[in-house]
């Protein structure tokens, strides 16, 4: 067995039908929670509109990771299927939100979110 296939086997230690222990699941969930919190903090602190949307994508990504982890834990593909829909919504959101951002930029020539603070309900 050459080195490459050894590495590939190590990476794919997924052994699908073997039950995943709760402790292993917890590691993935905590990583997903940390990623979500980083995305939220970025959404609060960044003032560039495009980076704010990028931070929402980071939060989508964190949610997707926990969905996949639960899908593996329950040996059920529905969680993975749901990530496909998360991807769909993220793609639709990127198309619309980025068109809006370009529109806003054309109007004021700035991407600063605080430049639009007069938008009040």
């Amino acid at each position, binding site marked *: 067995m050459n080195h490459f296939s050894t590495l590939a086997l190590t990476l794919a230690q997924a052994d699908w039908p073997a039950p*995943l222990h709760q402790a292993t699941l917890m590691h993935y969930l905590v*990583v997903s929670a940390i*990623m979500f*919190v980083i995305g939220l903090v970025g959404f609060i602190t*960044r003032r560039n509109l495009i980076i704010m949307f990028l*931070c929402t994508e980071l939060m989508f990504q964190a949610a997707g990771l926990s969905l996949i982890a639960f899908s593996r834990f329950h040996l*059920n593909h529905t969680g993975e*299927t749901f990530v496909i829909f998360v991807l769909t919504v993220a793609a639709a959101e990127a198309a619309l939100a980025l068109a809006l951002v370009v529109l806003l930029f054309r*109007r004021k020539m700035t991407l600063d979110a605080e430049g639009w603070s007069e938008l009040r309900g």
Partner: protein
Amino acid sequence: MAEPGAASLASPILLYVGCVLGALGLLLALPRPRVSPQVIGLLVGALALGVIFIALGVRNADHLPNYNFYIFSAIALASALRVVTHPRPVYAALYFILTILASCGLYVLLAAEFMAFALVIVYAGAILITYLFVIMLATETPTSDAVESLSEYDRYSREPAFAAVIGLILLAGLSTLLVSGSAQLKPQTVDAGAQRIEWVPRRVERALREADLIAADERIARTDAPPNRLDGVTDSGLLMDLKPQPDGRVLGSVTIAYGNNQRRVVTSDDPRWPADMGLTNAEGVGMSLLADLPGAIETAGIILLMAMLGAVVLARKKVELDEAAKAQAHAAGAAGGGA
């Protein structure tokens, strides 16, 4: 196996110390006017991640994830931190691609190969390229390489202390709930979806043929009774009795028809019975998508169509309406540049 408290922590205090350290690292890494010790923030964040992993792992030494998990999650979280703190938007987007690739590694470790590839293609290949285009379209060209030449809203973050406190509270709450909740979960032992191997009879035939159990012209026999169409796809009308096992093999029997309506039964007692007859990840996801959630696909298609229509409408409007405002903004920008 699932003894109570199996997923317990080394100590809750260690977890909270990790959370506080992480918030401190985040606070240090966020860009601020005057001193902003970003490298120190990154190091403190890495230390916090280490403390959290120790808190989670020490009492569960037998159930640690693969060591690749630690590599991929460290890369993913470090580059996520750089997305949030990097002053240049293009670099932030590139770091986000790195986050995506590292989470794809985590997906592969979780046996979700199909979603890992889909994520690389859709996120890193399509969505992030759109982001990069928009960043390049909607950003003034920096005059020099120095950070000072960037616009003020990219250089400094808004309310870093408030955001770090919010993040700390959310992270502490989430991890408390996750740790106390996941101890009560019962792990599954049998892959329920593997029963659907009976929906793909040609694959069963191919696996048996490759194992030399049946000849090239032999087919799986049909049932004598007409196939029951009331419950739709679940009854293929073929004589198969296959059961997935906890170890991933599929055992059971298949009835084979060959010339003159003769039949014979091939069972898994045969030593040549193929060991790898289960569904692959892509097949499982596809069957789950099409059989369990057919309406959701239609909805997703409509969402994508609406997004496309919306993008077209938005793109048309800006050409017609904004000429005057654009000229004004250009004039203002020229005046500001001259002053």
